[in-house]
């Protein structure tokens, strides 16, 4: 009971921290990958405490599969956008924003988000499929 209560209260904070890590990758340590792992861990914690069934209800497998692809698609898509706006692949400074620094910031934020989405989805998939005892 207590564990469930604490987990329920803790998970939002872990997820908030994960978002902070993703967003602050360009200022301090951290970035998409670390943030993604932490976000994935919050869901793993939920699964460990509340069981596989509830975890699956919270985040159906189809959605994790979809998110895994979506993240890489965002990354590759940002690169292609850079080509569309006249730069080379992944040349963020060519994105149409006020100044190159802002463009670089937003471009990097976009790809970090992509990385975070893929990584957290795949981490959840790892746990779902490796820890599962039977077909649930």
């Amino acid at each position, binding site marked *: 009971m207590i564990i469930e209560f604490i987990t329920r209260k803790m998970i939002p904070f872990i997820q908030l921290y994960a978002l902070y890590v993703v967003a602050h990758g360009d*200022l*301090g*340590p951290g970035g998409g*990958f670390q943030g993604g792992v932490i976000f994935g861990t919050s869901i793993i914690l939920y699964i460990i405490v509340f069981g596989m069934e509830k975890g699956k209800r919270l985040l159906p497998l189809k959605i994790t599969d979809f998110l895994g692809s979506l993240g890489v698609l965002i990354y590759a898509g940002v690169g292609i956008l850079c080509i569309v706006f006249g730069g080379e692949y992944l040349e963020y400074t060519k994105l149409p924003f006020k100044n190159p620094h802002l463009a670089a910031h937003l471009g990097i934020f976009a790809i970090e988000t992509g990385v975070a989405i893929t990584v957290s989805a795949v981490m959840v998939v*790892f746990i779902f*499929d*490796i820890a599962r005892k039977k077909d649930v």
Partner: protein
Amino acid sequence: MSDFILSKFNYWASILLMMIGMYGMIAKKNLIKKIIGMNIFQVSVFLFYISMGKVKGGTAPIFWEKAVIYDNPIPHVLILTAIVVSISTTAVALSIIIRIYNCFRTVEENKILETLANDENQSGNNQ
């Protein structure tokens, strides 16, 4: 002499760790143990890379007005990529091991090879 040893100690320690990991990877017969060896092997290679990026008196590679010398950020970047590769390999390897366990009911290489040899004999007799 002690200067010389200290100046290379990080590299030698990582080489020793690599040897331990690699030994676990080839000599052990247990499939999971091999993967544990693989993890040690790869992490020690990462240690080797990180050691080469250290600069005497350097600060962490994050912009800071007071900093004079920074540590080299390139090895850090390369290793971030390599860590991801390492966890991916581990996950795939463990999935294959779970499948192997389901087919053979064991994770010892010797026993699996025995079972496979039996398989082949039987299919040979049937013909």
